[in-house]
């Protein structure tokens, strides 16, 4: 073979690759370029994390539990300064998002993937859902403002109590709904056709096929998508400001699972971070407090993501 290619250029390439004498300069350059890209991303992330971690050490090492249990205060040196109101608010919002966006979003995805006929109308709907996932979050805040606070349609403000935890939660549930539909839809599409046909083959109805084959198989994917969307919701600040999240001082401090928190004023971790960052112009110590709040928020989001990974692994084992 090699002798027949003796005049060919490829012979040199093959020889070089076998003997390793000549260096594939372009290939190496490309590889180095790709590595540089990755390194740059990691470096940016590292700089961000290191700065935040460095700034937050004072608050988090000297008064960790006080900081977790504290409230919004007017001065950064206050003993009672802390983030518990933000944590509670963010957890309530996560619960509302889970209760509203997950069932509706997964249900919508199951209908679109399994039941809806494939025609122009459904593909039009799918395109729109994808567009909705790309709409800036502030726009959802405006929607929440019109719908839940000003009650321009259906008088929904009576239900939510205006500037309340419920308004914030519902707004963010609407925000992540398209993401839930898309990620769930993709997980459902990845289910092998053979599984469906097998279920039909043993006489299952459509509902039985979906319940016993499709959903369990797609569960890890659906779960990953939904929990990641939850992490997105927990990190949003802009829409919450529009629906009346409190930036200055939150009077009431109901316990974590007191339902009265639902129609009361609220704040959330990203709001606390925004507010303290703004106040750092007046009182420099707030910059450190904001950094500490960022660490708390990162920890919360990482916790959620690792929960998603753990659950996914568990499901995948079962599926295998």
């Amino acid at each position, binding site marked *: 073979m090699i002798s027949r290619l003796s005049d060919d250029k490829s012979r040199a390439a093959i020889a070089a690759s076998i003997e390793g004498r000549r260096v594939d300069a372009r290939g190496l350059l490309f590889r180095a370029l790709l590595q540089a890209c990755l390194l740059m991303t990691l470096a940016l992330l590292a700089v961000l994390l290191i700065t935040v971690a460095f700034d937050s050490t004072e608050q988090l090492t000297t008064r960790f539990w006080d900081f977790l249990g504290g409230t919004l205060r007017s001065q950064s040196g206050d003993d009672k300064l802390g983030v518990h109101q933000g944590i509670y608010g963010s957890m309530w919002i996560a619960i509302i998002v889970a209760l509203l966006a997950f069932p509706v979003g997964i249900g919508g995805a199951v209908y679109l993937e399994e039941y809806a006929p494939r025609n122009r109308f459904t593909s039009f709907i799918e395109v729109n859902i994808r567009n909705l996932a790309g709409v800036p979050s502030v726009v959802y805040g405006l929607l929440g403002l019109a719908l839940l606070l000003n009650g321009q349609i259906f008088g929904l403000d009576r239900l939510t109590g205006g500037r309340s935890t419920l308004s914030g939660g519902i707004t963010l549930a609407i925000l992540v709904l398209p993401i839930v539909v898309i990620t769930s839809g993709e997980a459902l599409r990845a289910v092998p056709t053979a599984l469906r046909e097998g279920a039909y083959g043993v006489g299952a109805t459509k509902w039985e096929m979906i319940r016993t084959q499709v959903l369990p198989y797609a569960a890890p994917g659906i779960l990953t998508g939904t929990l990641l969307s939850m992490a997105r919701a927990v990190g949003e600040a802009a829409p919450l400001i529009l629906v009346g999240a409190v930036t200055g001082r939150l009077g009431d401090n109901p316990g974590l699972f007191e339902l009265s928190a639902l129609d009361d004023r609220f704040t959330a971790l990203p709001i606390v971070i925004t507010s303290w960052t703004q106040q750092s112009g007046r009182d420099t110590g707030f910059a450190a407090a904001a950094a500490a709040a960022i660490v708390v928020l990162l920890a919360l989001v990482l916790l959620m993501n690792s929960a998603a990974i753990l*659950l996914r692994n568990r499901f995948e084992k079962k599926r295998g």
Partner: protein
Amino acid sequence: MRGHGRRRAAMVVSAVVVSLSLLAAACGDDDDEDTEATTAETGNSGGGEAADDDAATDDTDDDTDDDTDGGDAAAATTVAPMTETEAEMSPVSGEVDISGSSTVEPISIRVAELFEDVAPDVSVTVDGPGTGDGFKLFCAGETDISDASRQIKDSEKEDCFANGINNIVELKVGVDGIAVMTNADNTAVDCLSFGQLFDLIGPDGEGASTWAQASAGLPDAPLDIFGPGEESGTFDSFIEIVLEDLAEEAGVEATTRTDYSPSGDDNVILQGIQSSDTSLGWVGFAFAVNAAGVKLLDVDGGDGCVTPTPETIASNEYPISRDLWIYVNADKAANNPAVVAYVDFYVSEALDQAVSEVGYVPLTQQAHAETAQRWNTRSLIN
């Protein structure tokens, strides 16, 4: 069948998040009735307010008399020890909802924090979307008190009246002053006019590296400017008070030049001023007044040079000062003892402490007494 069972188990696990939430809901079941009751009440009060308008106004009159007596008693013993106030206020409970200017916000929060020690059962919520947004909420009847870094506009007043919010008490609570500074060794400049400040710090000063280049007639010395960054309220205030009108006349954007050294940290600004003999900068007055190595410049706002002192700022003689206000919905106060107790405390001696702690200039004694008087007599705006 075993496989089927496993999948079923998987589905059960998949509901973990949902069931956790349900558990949470179940835990709170005891509170359910209370919550519903509260919601119902809220709904009713929303509808009933307009109808009860006359009655409410009458109530105000009655309450005003009662409170005036109490207020006078308090005013008579202005230096009353804290314990007496405590005994007077401890049974009060309820909610106070405040929104408005982010400049005044820290004062209202600080007062609320001090008030917390006196009346722990009163829950005060303070928000700072801005003076205009605050009035929108206030005139829609959503807040009890509105913080403002300017007086209410006629259009806003009409908006309030149109919504049946006729009884509004306007209270001056403090003064925001901005000091213009140079190095203590700079003897060439003592006083700057608004026009000169606009030349030096406004957008037209961009690129000017000496005082003379920026504004003819000033010394030919290097110009090093230090000031707060855009995120700072002092930055906005300086633009609003000093630069805005002149920028409009000159037909340029109302902002500062971009080639100065901004900092969010007032200490850094002061260090900058100290570092250069011919520096120029501005910070909140309360921060600059006691600093070493800096000289506070007089400012001419059109009526001659005025030296910044707590007195000239409190009296608005010093031109880079503005009054800070709160607006109280008197009808809401009449129906909510928590609001009355909070504002009583606000206009008491706690005010000066709160105002200076968050970096503003307290009112003069006379102005403070006037504020207390206005509140105690429920002097309404019209």
